[in-house]
């Protein structure tokens, strides 16, 4: 694609956003959905949906910038590594801490200090709500638009005994559908 096709280039300078502004906006987003949701699972789903739209758009723009038009990741592992490092840096300023695989079709992305959860203390009466559902939604949105449909969920790690830091690791669990895994295996065998 040449310069005349798009009026604006998609190159990106440094466009960092103030952490306070980001955190306050996220807080408003959660409060907006909180006032409309019947229960915590509905709230979590609303956050996931909001994240999915953000993830899909960010993924499209970022892969366009970094790889050029019409090129995208079509294998599972490189895509997940892209999410863990490059995408996480773009979205949250740092790479996620770890990416692990369970059973074949389950992958786990963990972040010790997820940006959206940095200032959030969930009250006890909200049970195991995790506002990282927004980040999980982003991951889900990317995977869906990249052709790797999956169920993405989000939960806190148990706090280690004796750890008084109050920080808890957020885990994002991706469970891929059978077709995706079979396709991967087929491509591996080729």
């Amino acid at each position, binding site marked *: 694609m040449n310069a005349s096709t798009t009026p604006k280039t998609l190159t990106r300078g440094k466009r960092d956003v103030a952490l*306070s502004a980001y*955190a306050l906006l996220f807080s408003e987003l959660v409060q907006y959905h909180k006032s409309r949701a019947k229960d915590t699972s509905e709230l979590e789903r609303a956050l996931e949906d909001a994240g999915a739209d953000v993830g899909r758009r960010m993924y499209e723009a970022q892969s366009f910038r970094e790889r050029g038009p019409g090129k995208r990741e079509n294998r599972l592992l490189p895509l997940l590594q892209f999410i863990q490092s490059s995408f996480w840096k773009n979205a949250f300023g740092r790479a996620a801490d770890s990416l692990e695989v369970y059973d074949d079709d389950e992958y786990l992305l963990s972040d010790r200090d997820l940006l959206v959860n940095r*200032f*959030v203390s*969930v009250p006890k009466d909200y049970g195991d709500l995790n506002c990282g559902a927004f980040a999980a939604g982003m991951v889900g949105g990317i995977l869906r638009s990249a052709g790797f449909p999956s169920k993405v969920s989000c939960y806190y790690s148990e706090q280690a005994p004796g750890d*008084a830091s109050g920080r808890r690791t957020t885990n994002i669990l991706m469970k891929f559908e059978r077709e995706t895994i079979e396709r991967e295996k087929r491509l591996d065998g080729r």
Partner: protein
Amino acid sequence: MATGKLLAVWLVNKSGGLIYHRALREDAPTLDANACLRLASVWHSLHAISRKVAPVTGCAGIESLECDTFDLYCFQAETGMKIFVTMTKGSADASGTLRRTHRAYCDYALKNPFYEVEMPVRCELFDVAIADIARSVNERG
């Protein structure tokens, strides 16, 4: 002169209601919930009166109160919320402590979607931040 130790942190909202109180040392006086509410409201009134009776214009209210047995330092934010700390006698730079407490409030209460403004602060991460501040003040010198 020994450095002053942090005894307790108090947060009072703009209408004089106590929204946070925490004793941070064993020698801090034990107060029941009603006594805390009453004292916070008394301090709120005293602070307001001091602004009115000050002989100079633009007075921002009492910043510190030095007693025989303890010192009190107070900071009022632009929103009318007050933070005050009680400390043991001794040299102390309380402005840093007050600023750090205010910052913790801005971060872990105001940016927390489950916190309602003007209501009591019940946020785990805020408690942790206050404990950190207390530790760093009480362990120095």
